[in-house]
């Protein structure tokens, strides 16, 4: 394996990590509150708002139903507005974030749904405000489930980021397609796949470790 190839793989690995990190952090910052909102506005929940809940649910579902490769090109004007360019690694991070937000939101909503309603009731009996219930009961009690959901999101982002090549975003998936597939170089293809497998394993193990560490159920 030439040093040029090693450089290329290293460069692509950093690009993938960069896109996954940016999209992972931003989608967490936006997706977690959205997931909380999806949960607490449900009927009979602490901030029941059936109409808002239905609207949020529709928006979330639309976001999740658009295939990523289409989303990637469909929101190019938006991407250009945000990062000033429609090509490159930063430009790929925008659609990745947009795709991951509803994904995170639904996983967070699901994790909150696993919190026993009795705990919310107990907090209400102590005179907790809805905000206190969210911050001191729902989120801490769903911590394990939320970390689990974020791990799934990061792994999905690694996989989605392979499509970033379509907008010149680079990354391991792009490397595999261009050098491995288009130029019939099975070695490059194999290396990219191995690096991706190792990366996903590491993310999953880290996620599992954090769940074990944070959850006392």
């Amino acid at each position, binding site marked *: 394996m030439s040093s040029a190839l090693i450089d290329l793989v290293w460069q692509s690995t950093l690009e993938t990590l960069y896109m996954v990190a940016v999209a992972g952090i931003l989608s967490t910052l936006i997706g977690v509150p959205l997931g909380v909102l999806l949960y607490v506005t449900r009927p009979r929940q602490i901030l029941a708002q059936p109409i808002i809940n239905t609207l949020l649910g529709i928006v979330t579902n639309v976001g999740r139903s658009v295939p990523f490769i289409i989303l990637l090109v469909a929101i190019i004007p938006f991407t250009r507005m945000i990062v000033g360019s429609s090509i490159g690694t930063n430009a790929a991070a925008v659609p990745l974030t947009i795709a991951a937000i509803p994904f995170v939101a639904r996983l967070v909503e699901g994790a909150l749904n696993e919190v*026993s309603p*009795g*705990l919310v*009731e*107990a*907090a*209400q*009996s*102590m*005179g*907790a*405000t809805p905000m*206190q219930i969210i911050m*001191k*009961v729902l989120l*801490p*009690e769903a*911590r394990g489930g939320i970390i689990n959901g974020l791990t799934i999101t990061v792994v999905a982002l690694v996989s989605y980021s392979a499509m970033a090549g379509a907008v010149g975003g680079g990354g391991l998936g792009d490397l595999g397609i261009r050098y491995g597939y288009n130029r019939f170089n099975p070695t490059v293809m194999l290396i990219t796949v191995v690096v991706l497998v190792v990366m996903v394993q590491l993310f999953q193990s880290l996620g599992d470790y954090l769940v074990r560490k*944070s*959850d*006392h*159920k």
Partner: protein
Amino acid sequence: MISLDNVSKTYGSGPGAVQALKDIDLQVPKGTIHGVIGLSGAGKSTLIRCVNLLERPTAGRVIIDGQELTAMDAAALRQARHQCGMIFQHFNLLTNRTVYDNVALPLELMGQSRQAIRERVTPLLEMTGLADKTTQYPAQLSGGQKQRVAIARALASRPKVLLCDEATSALDPQTTASILTLLQEINQQLGLTILLITHEMEVVKTICHRVGLISDGRLVEDADVGDFFTSPGTQLGREFLNDFLKLEAPQALIERLEPEAGANTHPVVRLTFSGDSVATPLISRLAREHGIDVSILQAKVESIQGRTLGLMIAELMGSASQTRQALATLESFDLQVEVMGHVQRPD
């Protein structure tokens, strides 16, 4: 201290509506332990949830310590709930908080300082026997220990009232006894008013001063525990009592019972003694004065809130006139006599 005034609760509306509570009037004076007993689905849970407005009553007023909760806005209600601790059947502890942090939660919600919280939580953990468990998580505790944490947590905000929702129903008998003892100590030492709901007569017998019986959303009895155990006022009350005392005639006898007296029959009676009649040597007196034999089929003595309750099922063996006189004698005493039926004399 707690006053429910014509409280009703209806779920849903129109023809599908379910009326869970119907015109409940309930007074719990300061410092008493009031039990509410009933079958599953009778409305017990709804009742206790209406006291701190976890369920908002459809009609009626809830007044705690002179404050009408039903007239308050959300913010005032949250303040009032600090006066009103609650414990639950399944404990409802936060699994990701230690024992200490669980007990600290209500104080955190009130915005108290770390220092103030420590000064309150530490003695509470000592009082509830959890001083060595402070850094453990609920998953590491037994059911009884979890309920102790829940009790400490409920007391943290120095409430005047403690609501117990089936607090011992998930616990084994020994643990139940220890939790009931703790509740009794809290009641006596802190003068806390306790309203508890349960389906276990044992709980009522052990710690309650008064008991209400709820059936199909209505409070059908509300009596001193001693009175309820000696003479329940309703059929359902008697069923609870019989079930609790397990004083049933043997099956073989029930099959032989005939409703009407015949030429060759003996009456079978159920006697309920309470108060002074317990001490009367009644059986030997019947034998001596009326010349009959008394065959005791079942008997039991219970002590309830300092009052003694005796129950007996007996067959009175003698001629028709002897047994008639014996029954008259029995009825002249301070006890309840119920003729369950008649059995054929053995030939």
